[in-house]
């Protein structure tokens, strides 16, 4: 269920990272692109529930760790968004994925060529804005005044610590301009198709079996219908 895969690093090196797999060498194999930062913590359990549903429906699925996140031993501040995108392409090839799935900010990392099911994609600029806002509000509570514009200016040159996530300057610059790539072969999933309150909006991690089942059903139909 847990395997190691050779993730590429921004400097051209390779790092052995963990991946959670439901692998029975089946024909259709889904790469679950990992959401970033806090959204990963909030959504991981839900993603695994979706993978279990897909496993039962006859599809393989893999959720790889990225260098610098989750169980990785690599320093986060040295990672870049383009480095992670490349690592996801490497993972797609390494695991022989036929399709990809991205929930929320994971859509920033979709592999270049795989047809993808995409739910509630979030732009890099919005993600960064939310993280900076969490920091300015926390600072204000602590009696310090920090301005978002000043923080970003510093971040572009020297990196920035945002709610415990240590982001390097290139990561800040990458995120400011990052958007989700959508191919003609992709399936975008509207919130109305899933129902219920989005889990990523809540302050605490959660799970919702009916949402997981609904998402898995749509992804399974997409994988079954298309190659």
């Amino acid at each position, binding site marked *: 269920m847990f395997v190691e895969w050779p993730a590429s690093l921004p400097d051209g090196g390779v790092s052995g990272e963990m991946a959670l797999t439901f692998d029975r060498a089946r024909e259709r194999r889904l790469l679950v692109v990992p959401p970033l930062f806090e959204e990963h913590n909030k959504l991981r359990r839900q993603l695994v529930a979706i993978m279990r549903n897909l496993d039962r429906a006859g599809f393989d699925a893999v959720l790889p760790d990225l260098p610098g996140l989750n169980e990785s031993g690599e320093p986060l501040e040295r990672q870049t968004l383009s480095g992670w995108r490349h690592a996801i392409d490497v993972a797609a090839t390494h695991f022989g994925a036929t399709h990809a799935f991205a929930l929320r900010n994971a859509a920033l990392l979709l592999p270049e060529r795989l047809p993808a099911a995409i739910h509630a994609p979030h732009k890099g600029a919005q993600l960064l804005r939310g993280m900076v806002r*969490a920091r300015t*509000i*926390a600072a204000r509570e602590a009696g310090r005044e920090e*301005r*978002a514009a000043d923080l970003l200016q510093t971040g572009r040159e020297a990196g920035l610590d945002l709610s415990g996530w240590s982001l390097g300057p290139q990561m800040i610059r990458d995120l400011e301009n990052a958007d989700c790539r959508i191919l003609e072969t992709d399936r975008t999933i509207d919130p109305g198709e899933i129902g219920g309150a989005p889990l990523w*909006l*809540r*302050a605490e991690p959660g799970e919702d079996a009916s949402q997981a089942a609904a998402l898995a059903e749509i992804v399974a139909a997409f994988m079954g219908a298309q190659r």
Partner: protein
Amino acid sequence: MQTAQSTAGTKATGPSRMELDTTLKAILRDVLGLGEDQVAAFDAETGLFGHLPELDSMAVAGLLTEMEDRLDILIEDEDVDGEMLETYGGLLAFAEAKTVET
């Protein structure tokens, strides 16, 4: 006024107060995990920050970000003060002013 025509009435004046009320209540329900009945009962005087235990400072950050996304507005640091978050009526008035401005 080609732009006014092509973007239709809603954008020129912002969404109606009723639409905004519905959207804002849905955002509060989703971000704070409140019940449908609880947000339906919100009126202008309903206390928010300091009254709803769910609305701590981290939830404020999430709330403002989701308001930006769903209402297609930008909220600046200096916009955020006690008044806008004190009551539901204050937040609704703020959202209304922002959507007209955008």
